[in-house]
Every structure is written in C-alpha cells, then in structure tokens.
C-alpha cells in the first residue's frame, strides 16, 4: 500500500477489464450480458470515486442514471434473449453468426474439433418446474445424468 493509485479506481478499472474479458470470451448470452453489467459497475464505481475526490454529487447522480440505463438494458436484453432462445432453443451466441462472409466457416462447427465435451461433474443446479404442467410420475422433475449428457452433446 505504498503506490499512488487510488484503491477504488484500481478496483473499478479491474472490474471493467474483467467484464470485457467475460464479454469477449463467454458464449452464453446471459453471461455476456452479466459481463456487460459488470463493466457498468466498474464505470459507476469510478464515477462515484471521482465525485468523492472532487467533492460534489455529480458522480453519484451520474451513476444513478447509469443504473437506470442498466435496468432498461437488462429488461430489453432479457426480452431479446428469450426471443433468440425461442428460435434456437439454446443460449449459444455462436449460433447467431449470419453476418459472416459466405465462405467463412460457421463458428458452431468448431465444437466438433474441440474434442469431447468436458462435462461438469458438480451437482446439477436447481431446475425450475415449468408452471402449469401436470406432474408426470414417469418423468421425474429432477433430470438424470443421462438426459443431461444428451442435451449437452446436442447443440
């Protein structure tokens, strides 16, 4: 703690950079949106810090507006994600690559070259029951590993 960088500014810059990495590398639509929100966190933190340093409220007020915009963005992003999901039944961003040149390979095809999919061995996270569906005793709500693998290979 002997440098000259304001500690909150360091955190804000790091959050921004990490959010950028997340946005660039992750293929899950929701994680991309969350990464973008994290970048907004970094910006808001920096502005609050600047407001503190300059001794006025403008930084905080600006962050309030950023918060507003972030809320709007989250709502719209969720609607968009649902729309996209409706089309492909998947949250994979790589499925949406219609902008590419005609002779470029489809990025989705890359999965086959990546070798066998590494399956997360951790416990399955809680699954929400679809509302309004009658409970069918033959198909338990808790998915089994086999069905898990089936969907995992099927993208």
């Amino acid at each position: 703690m002997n440098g000259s960088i304001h500690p909150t500014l360091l955190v804000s810059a790091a959050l921004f950079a990490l959010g950028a990495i997340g946005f660039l590398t992750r293929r899950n639509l929701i994680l991309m949106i969350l990464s973008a929100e994290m970048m907004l966190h970094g910006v808001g933190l920096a502005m609050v810090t600047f407001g503190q340093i300059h001794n006025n409220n403008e930084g905080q007020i600006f962050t309030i507006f950023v918060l507003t915009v972030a809320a709007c963005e989250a709502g719209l992003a969720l609607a968009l994600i649902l729309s996209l999901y409706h089309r492909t039944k998947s949250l994979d961003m790589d499925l949406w690559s219609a902008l590419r040149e005609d002779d470029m390979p489809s990025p989705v095809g890359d999965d086959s070259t990546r070798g066998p999919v590494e399956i997360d061995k951790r416990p399955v996270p809680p699954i929400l029951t679809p509302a309004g569906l009658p409970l069918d005793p033959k198909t338990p709500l808790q998915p089994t590993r086999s069905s898990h693998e089936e969907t995992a290979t099927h993208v």
Partner: protein
Amino acid sequence: MSDYAQLILWLIPGAPLIAAGFIALFGKLFMGERSHVPCVAALAVAFACSLALLVSIVPGTFHEHHPEGASFEGNDGQQYTQVDEEQVISPTKGAVALGYEWLDIGTMQVRIDLRADAISAIMLAMVTGVSLLVAIFASGYMHGDPGYARFFAAVSLFVFSMCMLVLSGNFVQLFMFWEAVGLCSYLLIGFWFKKPSAAAAKKAFVINRIGDFGLLSGVFLIWKTFGSVDFQTVLFNAEAIAKANVDHPGTLPLICLLLFIGAMGKSAQFPLHVWLPDAMEGPTPVSALIHAATMVTAGVYLVARSTPLFMYAPNVQLFVSAIGATTALISALIALTQYDLKRVMAYSTVSQLGFMFMALGAAAAGPKVATFAVMAAMFHLFTHAYFKALLFLASGSVMHSMGDVIDMRRFSGLRHALPVTHWTFLCGALALAGFPLMAGFWSKDDILVALGNGMQSEHKTFFTVIFAVAVLTALLTAFYTFRAYFMTFWGPEKFPEEALQPHGHGAHDDHGHGHAVSHDPHATPDHAHGEARPHDAPPAMAWPLRILAVCAVGIGFVGPLHLFGNYFERTPGLPDAAPHGLHLGPMLMSVVIALTGIALAYKFYVKSPEIPAGLAIKLRPLFGLSQGKFFFDEIFTAILVAPLRIIATLCALFDKFVLDGVVDSFGALPRFMSQAPRRLHGGLTPAYATTMLIAVLGCIVCVMQLFAGQ
C-alpha cells in the same frame, strides 16, 4: 380575327394530337374496331381548319397580280416583334399563333409558335386532306388487324408532327418535328414488327440520320451566322441575308448544302434513296400517306422554304438539280423492271421527288424565274400528293383483294373483277404519266418550263442536260406507269390462289370482313361465284379512292388558272415573279411524251407481250442492273456496312479484352486486398467487440500521448 386565327391555327395540329393521345390511352381497351373514329374526326377538323386558313390567310388577293403587300420589306422583322401581342393576318406576315418560350439558352431563344403563310397553308391543306382520305381508307383496309388502335394513334401523331413541321416558325422547331415525323415513319414502317422485313424501319431510321446530321449542322451554322434560328430574321429579312453573305463569305452556300443534305435524307434523293422502297413494308395506307404524299415531301418543302438562302448559292442549286435529275433517272430505270406493284410506285415516288428537286434547282437561272421554279416544284408536290396517294391506295386495294399478293406476275386482267380500283388507278396513272389535262400534266409542264428558263440563263449547257434527263424520265414514267397498269388490269384474267380462299383476305383480315363483302354491290357482280372471286374495295376504301381520283383529274386546273401561282407568290421571302402564261411548246412536248410512253406500254404489254421478254434476254446486263435496283444496297453493304462491321467487331473485342480487363482488375484489386481482413468477419458479435476494444485502446493511447505533454 385574332382569336379566330389563333383558334384555327391551334386546332390544326391540336386536334390530331388529342386524337393520338386519346386513341393511345383508350383505343385498345375501350374502342377496339372504332378506334378510327377519333382519328378521322380530328383529321376532318384539321382539314376544315386548314381550308379556313387557306382562304383567310391571303384574303381578297387572288385576282391581283402584283399586290403591294407581296413585296417584302426589309425591316419587317421589327414590325413583327412590335405586333406580336395582337395577331394579325396579312399577306406578308402570314398568321402567327403564339405558343410559349421553349428554350432560352444564352443568345438562343426558341419559341414554340405556329406560323402560317401561303406555302404552309398549301402544304397544310394538302397534308390534312390526303391524310383524312387515307385514314378513311385505312379504316377499311386495316379492319381486323390486332394493332388497329395503335395504327390510328400513330397516324394521328404523324399528322400532328407534320402539321407542326409545316407550321414551324424557326429552324429548331422544324428540326424537332422533322425528327418527330421520322419517328412516326419508323413506327408505321415497322407496324408489323413481327415480320423480319420490318427491319426496313431501322434502315429508314439509320439512313435518315445521315440527312438529319446535315440538317442539324445547317441549323447550327445558321444560328452561328445569323445569331437566330427564326424564319423571320433568317429567311424573310433580305438585308440580313445580304449582310451575312458579305460578312461570312462562303457560309451561305455551306448552309444551303447542309440543308439540302437534310432534304436528301428525308426526301430519299440519290444516294440516300435506298430506304424509301424498303419502307413499303409498312401498311399500304402508310406508304400512301407518309412515303408518297406528305413526309417525303418535307425535304422539298424545306428547300423551297429556304429559297431566300439558296438564292445566294447558285452552285448549290445546280447541285440540287443534278441530284434531282440523277435520282429521277435512276429510279425511273429501276421502276421499269420491278414486278412488285408497290415497289414500282415507290421508285416512281423517288423519281417524282427528283423532278421536284430539279425544278428547285432551276431557281439558279436568276431571281426573275426563281419564284416560278419554286412554284413549279411546290405545284408538282401538291398534285403528286393526290395522284400518288391515289395510286398507292389503289395498289393497296389490289393487294387487299389479292390476298396480300403484290407480285404483278401472279395476277392480271383485274379490270372486270375490281372495277372501282381499276378506274381510280387509271385516273392516277394518267395523272402520273402526264396525260393532257390531268393533274400531273400541268405540274410537269411547269417543271419543264422552269428548266427551259434555266436553259436561257448562263448555265445553258447544264440545264440542257437536265432538261433532256427530265424529258427522258417523263417518257420512262409514262411507260412504267402504264406497264404496271396494263400488267395488273389487262390481259387474261388471273388470280393468285390466296385471293380465292374464302377467308384468305390477308394476314390482317378476319371473317368480319367477309361479312362486309356480301353487302358490296361492286365487289362481286356475279354472286354465284361470290366466294370464288376476289371482291372489290368496300365503301370505306372505295370512296376515298373516288374522291382522290376526282382530285387527280381535276386538281391540276389550279395551275393553269393561276390560282396556285398567285397564291404561292404571297409566301414571304420569295423574290418578285415575272408574269407567266401558258407555254404551248413544252405543253405540246409533254403531250407527245406521255402519249408515246403510254403507247409503248400498250404495245409491249397488251398487244405483243413477247417483246419485253425478248428485250430482257437481249439486254440481259441492263435488265439485270435495273432489276437489281442498280445494286445500291449491295454496294453500300460492301463499301460502308462491311468495313463498319469489321471496325465494330474490333471495338467489341477491344472492349471485351482490354477495357473489361482494366475494369475487372480495378475490381479485383480490392478483392485481393480484402482477402486478409475479411477473415475478421466471422459473424460473431464478440469478434466485432474485440475489434472495437482494440480501437478503444488506440484512442486511449492517443489521449495519453496528448496529456503526456502537459
């Protein structure tokens, strides 16, 4: 008076234009077989207005030989501009209906005005009258054609353009409608555009371009020399012309030459005459109206109209005469051996146009006889329009009855089967041959007199030759006209099989026509063989023929009675004419020539038909030359078309391999350069975001560099 003049002047071209638009818009859908009604009605209106114009434009001066107003005042141009506001009809100024200012480019001001004087009034009366009769004829002739409405729309448009051409008050407007009549001619020659021979329309259009180039250059030169294109300042201002002749020596002959080249194209003069015979591919009424009576005479009209300029270019006038004589002789020689009735008439038209130019050139004999020479040409134009339209329509009637067969070897002796056609054709043939007291007799006589006047000037030798050619051509004319007449209407009765088929009345005919036949008393005298015999013209075709026959016989009397001459001399810009009377010497010679030609034809084709065959064998090379139309088409193909085709092929190769290569390489360069960056376009959103982040990095570096200095 002013409103009246405005009204009739605007109605003359306006009525056909409205009819053309109306038929073009609604004809096909709503009018069908009644499409000719607006056209005929509009032409009747135009004809009535033309007659009204004719009698009102030079009121009360028919019987005065030297009215004061006929001489032209040099400063009339200024008077004209002063009285622009109120329209005045007077002998010298004619009638002017103001239109609007069309072009105003720098010093060039072009107005669309209607301007009528004596020569325009004569032309208008002739154009609208003949086109009215032709339109009535066509309503019968074109019956059942799928393009019925299109035909009448085009005819109406043509009459509008022709009237505007004649009514033009300046050279630019004249050129515009000169092109418009060419367009209508193109549309109507290619009327049956599915026939391969409709390519004649293209030929006519292309050859006319040569002439139009000359005319356009002439108009440019006129504008450069006079600073105006208005007739009032260019043609009717004698002082201005004299001044221009002094200021720009040699320009006036050049202008005249260029104008004459324009006239050569439109009026089918040697060597640009090759399009007119081929133009007969169009419907016969079109041939009668456009390619015999009206449009092709536009060149004669132009030269006659430009007489004040030609007065300063006697050499060009001699050239005009020479070209006219060459054309007349060559076409007459070609016409001798043709078997296609319409082609005989087409070459006859070319030949008669040559006559008119001969007469126009005779104006070189001097100012005293110049007006008479121009008058003779216009008079021949006037009479020729009637009898040649008659001959074409009668040929069309023959063709109609013979099931579209026009080869004279395949039918003969039709005078009993087609009595109306026979008598009217005979009237036209007599008029064309120059039989005494017929229309052609008087006008041809006037031309011979004009050429005789030329023989008494300093160009004695030249005009002697021209005169001899004219006499020879007149003889040939009488001969080939009656050759066609005798071959068609005399001899043993013979019909082609197309004519005998019950419904085979031509490609454009349908059974509705056969219905009309049964009501025609002239068509089938013997009803027992009604289906087996060709029928004569139905009333819609017969009555125009009869009226035109009366004209062909009687219209010539306006010449010897000095009606035409005295009227025509009111045309502004023409020099004072010497009084002229009947010339018994040339008249006698004309009679002898005509009778000789007719007698020869009678001898050859009725009395002893073996003579022509024997002559054809004896004079095989000459016969072949005439039969092959002097091989002008082949010569042109060899010396003009083939080299151009080679050049065009080379250009096409150059374009394909050199120009396209250069252009393609310009396209290939960015394509090559984009090979690397296009890999970035994988279509993945995060990839674009990466690029964006790199750019943000660059921006931050720049900002840091900026602030590092502080």
